[in-house]
């Protein structure tokens, strides 16, 4: 039973797409994954609009001071196990906006990131690749959840404190 659940986690990742402050280049590429050309539903991946249903948080764009709270809230509202994929140059490091006065930086300044996807804009293939890498981590985290270890609050808070 537990092994089937664990298998299901990898086979049915629902992802929520969060646009921090992207130029929409990466967003279009994320949505392109849904189209018949790439059809990520082959892997059971669904794009959901609600963090409470999601397993994977896909973040595009740089984090700024205004939306970092929203990003953290959305992340907090995702039930365990969950993973984060940072997409694009801005999502991973802050990109060309890195030095701007209102920019915090990459997504990993606010929440723990499990997979980074490079590119400006990131190609759909590489986004899918990033998600598949994140699925490996999802399975690992899933095993912890099965043992009754929920790291969500402490882990996140420690992570942010240590920044």
């Amino acid at each position, binding site marked *: 039973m537990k092994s*089937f*659940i*664990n*298998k*299901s*986690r990898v*086979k*049915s990742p*629902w992802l929520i797409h969060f646009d921090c402050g992207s130029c929409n280049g990466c967003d279009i590429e994320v949505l392109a994954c*849904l189209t*018949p050309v790439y*059809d990520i*539903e*082959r*892997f*059971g991946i*669904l*794009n*959901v*609009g*609600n963090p*409470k*249903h999601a*397993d994977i948080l896909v973040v595009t764009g740089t984090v700024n001071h205004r939306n970092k709270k929203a990003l953290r809230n959305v992340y907090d*509202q995702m*039930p*365990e*196990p969950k993973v984060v994929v940072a997409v694009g140059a801005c999502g991973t490091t802050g990109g060309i906006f890195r030095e701007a006065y209102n920019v915090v930086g990459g997504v990993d300044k606010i929440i723990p990131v499990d997979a980074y996807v490079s590119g400006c804009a990131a190609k759909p293939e590489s986004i899918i690749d990033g998600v598949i890498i994140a699925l490996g981590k999802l399975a690992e985290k*899933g095993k912890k*959840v*099965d043992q009754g270890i*929920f790291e*969500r609050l402490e882990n996140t808070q420690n992570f942010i404190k240590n920044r």
Partner: protein
Amino acid sequence: MSMNEVIAVLAAIFVAPIIGGIVAGIDRKVTARLQGRYGPPLLQPFYDVFKLFGKEKMIVNYWQIICAYMYLAADVLTVVLLALQSDLLLIFFVLAVGGVFLVIGALAAESPYSQIGAQRELIQMLTYEPLLILVFVGIYLETGSFKISDIIANYHEPLLLSLPLLFVVLGYALVIKLKKSPFDIATSHHAHQEIVKGVLTEYSGPYLAIIEISHWYETVFILGLCALFWHTNFIWMAVLLVVTYFGEVLVDNICARLTWRWMLPHAWTGGLIMSFANYFWIYEKIK
């Protein structure tokens, strides 16, 4: 209870969700093909549900849990009563219990999305419930009984041939009940885009899984209801079910979403006119 009844109950409880899940899988596969995609594996709904069972339990308040369980119980009971060939109206009322608890659970969270979803779900219930009662009354007028067992025992012609218009009404009601486009107003299957997830927004993890399983039971109930329209011949029954369900999926894929302001008056007037025409037909035939 005889042996047959025990088997029927057990089948309703344990086999129905498997059938419902597979039908949901076929649904997704067919939808993908209609959209020119490859689509998920056939067992994808099972993966989804088992994954949800493995998620952390996250709730807004305890009432959601109560409501999710009551919803499941009502839907299981619906299918069990169908398997026991009991009273159509009773089955219908038990089905309504499920809907009511789904709505109460959605209203329990103070989220605007689930609240609006709940209101729309209520309006959808308001739309399809009278239509279903009209269909059942039509079946009664034709066969003289509300009990499925009596209908099967005493009526030896396909119901579809004497109640064609009511079958259309039933199909109409089922599009609304199954929340297929153009009536995926309260919540949507496609890309989860209508008011976030509407009535299901605040159910998550295992509780969403419970609701998903209830949906499977509902699907089985609905197929059972359609099967009643050709209960005399197994092959024709299968054909009817396949055609009906494919019709629903097709409509789902070719329609844009409509508002409840369109749905309510049109479904009621259309349903009423067709029901009355069919009642009239039955009266003429009896005469």
